[in-house]
Each structure stands twice: as C-alpha cells, then as structure tokens.
C-alpha cells in the first residue's frame, strides 16, 4: 500500500484544554476545516514548529518532529498575510533563501505593477496575493496555507486556486469553508466532528 503523505499526531494546548490531533492521509492536499476556536491555526503553527507540542510530524515518510523550525523548509501563508514592512513587495517575495522571482506566478496574480511598492500601501487582497506568490516562489517540503483566499475577489481566488492545484508538493489548507477545500481536491478533516 502507498505510504502516507501525512502522518501527524500532535498533542497541543488549545486555550485551557489539551487536545490530540491526528492527521493521516494518502492525499497530497489535506484540508482542515471547522469553526473558529477549535485550534486550526494553532495546529498549523504546531506543524510549522512555532508552538510547543509533542507527538510526531511525518510528511512523505520524513520525520520533522525534532527538526528546527528554520530547517523544516515549510512554506507558510499566514492567516493575516503578514508581509515584512521594511521590504518591498519584490523583496518580500524573494525573502526565502534561494527563492527566484516567479514571473509567471506574478503575472497570473497581477502583481507586476506592485513589485516596488511597500506593503503598507497594499490592500488586503493585494497583500494576500503577495503572500501566496511568496510561498509559491519557494514551496519547500510542505505548504501550509491558513485561509489563503479570505481577502480575494472571485477572479483572483480562482487564479490562486489554479496555481495551487498545479503544485505537486504536500499541502495543508485551512479554511472554514468546505467549498475552497473541495475545489482544490483536498481530503477534508473537519475538526468539528
């Protein structure tokens, strides 16, 4: 039988509760959904190594549990699309070591005219597109996207979804809408159940 792409079992502190999350899937794309407050973002941050947790993180048969955050090479689109304020859009996209400017992605996401701008002058949707371009320019071993379409209009949402569909690396998508996860062909884990 094919090896699991995701074999994650994490014990986490969510608010006052201790919870155990099991993410097991043969699919390249795993979607996590559920209402606010169930720990979707905390779970993503634990996989990234940003919050303390115990358990195992195996992605494509490689164990990352004891790998330092900066050595995991996971790309991340945070929920609020945080961009680095003292860098231009272009510098933000190229921030990850070894990243190349992905011209086709930049054109598809309509970012050509924004490359020299500073992040404070971007709208929420523009910031989200830059955050996506940044993650796509250096996808690493895993992509974690936390509500990556929340600020996008219908056209840009579709373009972003097409781009993500073309990526051939493991991906964890967090969303509170099932539709986004279904479009991307994710195996869906509903934390509410």
């Amino acid at each position, binding site marked *: 039988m094919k090896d699991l792409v995701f074999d994650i079992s994490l014990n986490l502190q969510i608010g006052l509760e201790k919870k155990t999350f099991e993410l097991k899937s043969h699919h390249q794309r795993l979607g996590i959904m559920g209402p606010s407050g169930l720990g979707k973002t905390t779970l993503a*941050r634990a996989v*990234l*190594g*940003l919050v303390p947790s115990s358990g195992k993180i195996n992605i494509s048969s490689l164990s990352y549990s004891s790998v*330092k*955050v*900066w*050595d*995991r*090479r*996971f*790309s*991340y689109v*945070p929920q*609020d699309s*945080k961009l*680095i*304020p*003292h860098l231009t859009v272009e510098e933000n996209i190229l*921030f*990850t*070591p070894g990243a190349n400017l992905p011209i086709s992605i930049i054109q598809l996401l309509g970012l050509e005219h924004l490359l020299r701008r*500073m992040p*404070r*002058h971007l709208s929420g949707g523009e910031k989200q597109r830059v955050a996506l371009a940044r993650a796509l320019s*250096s996808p*690493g071993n895993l992509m974690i996207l936390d509500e990556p379409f929340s600020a996008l209009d219908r056209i840009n949402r579709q373009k972003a979804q097409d781009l993500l569909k073309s990526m051939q690396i493991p991906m964890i998508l967090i969303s509170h809408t099932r539709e986004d996860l279904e479009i991307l062909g994710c195996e869906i884990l509903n934390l509410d159940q």
Partner: protein
Amino acid sequence: MMNADLSSIIESSLLVGFLATLISLIPAIGLGWILARSDFRLKALLNLVIFFPMVSPPVVTGFVLLKILGRNSVIGQGLGLMGVTIPFTLTGAVIASALVSFPLFVMMVRASFSSLDRSLEEYSLTAGYSPWKTFLKISLPLSWPGILAGAVICFARSLGEFGATIVLAGDIEGKTRTISMAIYSLLDSPTGESQAAKLLGYSLAFSLTGLAVYEFLNHRFWKRLE
C-alpha cells in the same frame, strides 16, 4: 577662559558623549533584547543592576565606581598592572557617563523590541532563517527607531553628566573638564557668568543637533516604509 580652553572643553564633552554612546550600543541592544524577550529567575536582579544608576543619585554612582575602579580596589590594581588608570582620566569620565545614561538606552531598546510584531519573526523562522539571522533581518531593522532614540538620549545624557563624572574623573582642566563641569566652575567665579552662558549655548546646540539628527534619520526610516 581662552579659546584653547574652550575647544578642549568642547572636545572632551563630545568625546565623552560619543564614546559613552558607542560603548553602550551593543550591551544596550543585547540587554534590551534579553529584558524584552526572556523570562528567567534572575531577571528581577538584572533589572535592578541595570536600572540602579537611574534611580540612585549620580554622585552615589560615581562613588561606587570609584570604590570599584579606584587604585586601591582589586579591579583598579589589576588594571594598574596593565598600565590602565580609570580615576581622574577621560576614560573615567566616559565610564561614569555611560553608566548613568545606560539605563535610558536599555529602556528605549527594550520598549522597541517589546513592541515588535512577533509574527514577522516567526515568518522569518519558517522561511529558513535561524533565530540569529532573523534578529539581523527582522528584529534589528524594525527596532531601528527605538535604538536610534536610545542612542540620542544616551549621547545627550552623557554630554550633560556631572555628578558621577566629577567623583570618578574629577574636574581637571585640559583633561577631564567637560561643559557641565566648566559651567559649574565658571559660576563659582564672579566674572564667569557670561562665559558660562556661552558654554550653555554650545551644550544646548549639541543636544538639539542630536535631536535633529534623530528626527532626520527617524523620518528617513518611516519614509522608506512608504
């Protein structure tokens, strides 16, 4: 007061202000970071040691320094063997000034690091930068206005330092006499008031220049973000 005396006084003052700021820079950044970001058992004690000179009378700080670095102390004797003398030298004036202004520097840097958006540093870690590289690429550049403000305040405070400096370095004409000490001496003489006013003008000019440089660089920083 001769012109040569005036230039020696101004030179000593600027040198003390500049060197006190320079030697404080790295420790202020390091300790500001530790106080903003770390939690450890002896943190309260570290706070006490750093901020003590801010609440103690400067003369007391000078006296403590004299006891620690004076010729009869263990450290003073050790330094003496290496040919280094601290009391009643310009080095002593720099150390006294730096110590008195250091807490203000650390306070500004700590506030700056505390107000940083931690999610940007987290993002840098996930992008593949180690904590040290993240500090250099994210934390330090974004804290630049606070560090700059701390440096300007440290410089201005060092320039005007009197109490601790006069105890440790003395008021030696042509050697350790700074603007503050010269003003004090001149006010003691019946004809010194006009010359004291002249020095006061210089002192104010240097402090205002420091503030203007800060405003200029700070403005450039925010302009860069636009």
